[in-house]
Each structure stands twice: as C-alpha cells, then as structure tokens.
C-alpha cells in the first residue's frame, strides 16, 4: 500500500489527538495536523516501510507542537478564573453526564503539556509506553511518572469539582 494512503488512514487519529491536546481550539488543532501532514509528506522518503507509521506521525506532530509551544511560551496562558459569573456554570440537573465530560475537558486543560500529551497518548490513542517514549523522546520511566502525576492530578481536579456540585470551579 502506498505511503500516502497509510498516512491518510492515520489522519483521523492524529486529528482526535490534536483536538484533545488543544481542547477548545479545534481550528488550531486542525492547523497542527495540517502542519504535521505536510511535513510527513515531505519526508516520506525518511519513513522506513514496515516500521510504525502511527508512531512516526505522532512523533512529527509532537515535535511541531512542542516547537509551537516554545514560541507561544511568552504569551500569558488563558485560564478559567474566578470571575466567570455563576450563571455560566448553571446546568440542567439531568445533564450530569455532559457536565462531567466538560469538567474532564477543563481539568485536562489544567495539566502541564507533558502530562496532558502522555495521558492522551496512553488513554485515548492506546499507544504503548515504549511507543510513547519514542514519540516524546524521553525514557519510559519519564513516561510512567508523567502518567502517574497527570492522572492523579486529574482525579484531584475532578473530585474537588464533585464535592460542591452547585459551584463547579477548577482551582
């Protein structure tokens, strides 16, 4: 099968991952995927047939994103702050499931990039620890410690939310 088609087949996953990584900015996520796609197509000659195309593409996307992040690092981060009026958090009582998902998205957004991408590569994309260590270019031990810290932070954020259901704030 043609390399181009293998790349096309992996695109939906890259988009899902980028969408989660840049929660709240679907256009930015698609731009990131586009950048990764173009770079991959420029470098298909560097891809070794029979090796892991998925990991290769995620590596390219990660490197571009890390680079973009360095450029943006000087810019203040947008946060959910305490000034949002209570009404913005009002939800219908039967929307509990949806509410929880929104909390999840917001909690994820509170994590440092390294923890967020590790959690997403494991839990959303189902990559192995070894694949992730290659994608992120860090030792497996680092993958595991980022995963542990990130997941526990997510738990804390979610739990602090559900303690006071009428006042769902991420602190």
């Amino acid at each position, binding site marked *: 099968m043609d390399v*181009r*088609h293998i790349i096309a087949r992996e695109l939906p996953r890259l988009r899902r991952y980028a969408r989660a990584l840049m929660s709240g900015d679907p256009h930015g996520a698609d731009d990131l995927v*586009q950048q990764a796609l173009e770079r991959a197509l420029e470098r298909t000659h560097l891809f070794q047939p029979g090796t892991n195309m998925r990991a290769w593409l995620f590596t390219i996307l990660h490197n571009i994103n890390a680079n973009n992040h360095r450029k943006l690092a000087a810019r203040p981060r947008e946060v959910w702050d305490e000034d949002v009026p209570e009404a913005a958090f009002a939800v219908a009582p039967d929307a509990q499931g949806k509410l929880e998902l929104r909390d*999840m998205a917001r909690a994820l957004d509170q994590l440092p990039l390294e923890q967020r991408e590790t959690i997403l590569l494991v839990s959303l994309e189902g990559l192995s620890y070894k694949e992730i260590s290659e994608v992120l270019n860090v030792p497996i031990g680092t993958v*595991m410690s980022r995963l542990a810290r990130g*997941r526990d932070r997510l738990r*804390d954020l979610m739990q602090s939310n559900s303690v006071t259901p009428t006042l769902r704030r991420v602190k």
Partner: protein
Amino acid sequence: MNTKTDPDLDAMIHAFVDGELDAQSIDAVQAHLKSNPSAAQRAADYRHQRDALHDLYDDALNEPLTAEMRAALNAPTGYSAPTIWRAPIWRMAAAIVLFVAGGVGGWWGHDFTSPTTPDLVAQSSPYVNRAIGAHVVYAAEVRHPVEVAASEEQHLIKWLSTRLGRNVRAPKLGEAGFELVGGRLLPDDAKPAAQFMYENRSGQRVTLYVSLDAVPADTSFRIVERDGTSAIYWLEDGLGYALAGDLPRKDMLIIARLVYDALIA
C-alpha cells in the same frame, strides 16, 4: 484521598490499567486490588478517565478531512500549502474553487486532475474519477467506512436498487479473500451512485462503484491509476462499474473478473 503508597505498586496499577503487564504481574496486581479498596478505586478512576476521553473526542474520528488535508494528500510529491492559503479569506476562496471544480472533476474536491501528472483519469469517464475519490476517502475511514453494514445486506441492496432505479448487486468476492463490509449511497454528479466496500483479512480494502453514468464505449476492462490507487472500469448492461483499490494490478484484475463474472451470471 492521596494516601501515600508503595510507588512501585502505584506504577503497577497504571501499567495494569494500560495493558502493559505480563500474566504473572496481572495476577499480583489483581490480588493487591482485591485487598486494597482505595487502590481498586484508583484503577477504576483511571479507567473512567480513559472512557471520558473517548466520549469527549472520538467524534473527531468521523469528521471529513478538510479541503487542505485532501489537497496535501493528493498533491504529487513534497506538497506544502502555499502560505497564502493560511489567510482565512484565501482559504475560503480556495474552498469555493475546490467546490466548483468538484462539479466537474469529482464531488470530493480531490485534485486528481493535477496538471503536473499525466491526466489519465480526466480522459476517462468522469464517474471513474469519482469512484477513485470515494475509494480514497471512505476506504481510509476507521469507524464509519460504510452507511449500511454487510449484516443488513438485503436492506442495503434493496435501498440502493431503489435509489438508482436499477437492480444492483454486491457480488461475492470470497474467492479472492474479500468479504463485503457494506455500502453507501453517493452523489455521482447529480445522480445517485452506489459504493460497495470489501475487505480482506489483512485489512486491505477495495470498493466497487456503480454509476448510472455509463460512458465507456465498450465492455472491455480499462485501467487507470492515480497516486497509488487504481481503478478498473467497464460498462455492463447500461451501468458503469469501477473497482478501485491499492492492490497490485494483477490482483485488481483477478477481483475485477470475479465481479464481472458474478454480475453476468
């Protein structure tokens, strides 16, 4: 809530949830979880996080590719979008151009008629172009490759036959190792067309496109190829058929002959 525990065991719980452990370690972790409710709760929470992430983001798997992504995939080699595309107004203009071009070259906005490569498809029947476009788009689809699955084959055939106003059939291709995945209704210029998708054990897919636009002058097999996807097309009983796939030509021909034989039988 964050009671300090053995860090090694903590790591094992993550690895357990993520399917990274061998059988022996799985047993050990399971035993630990049984006797330790707070650890069991943590494992459950991690799984819950995973499920929530899928609930939140899996929809992205089903979104059609953007015009820019399709353009990049269809460009001859080493494509990179002109920077001018990045400006929203130009992006919009480009989308309109692709849309208009779609009326002629294919509904997909696929640039199969790129001037830098020999224009085999453009010279062939227009439906063949659309058949290749539909193959590239839907054969790559992870979660919704078809509208109606093979499990509802009778309904699928009846529905498509009604919409095309002709009896269409999904030939059996088991002899070539391909099983029907299902099919979908597609726009073929202003007419309906049918697409059947087949898959073999190694996940390779071929699609059979059935068009009312029967332009080829004779019933011989004609072959076109574009960017690694080839289509074998022919006319039979007033319908245009195109078998599209990424297999070697000889394999494509074997399947095309099977289709042909099944259809005239």
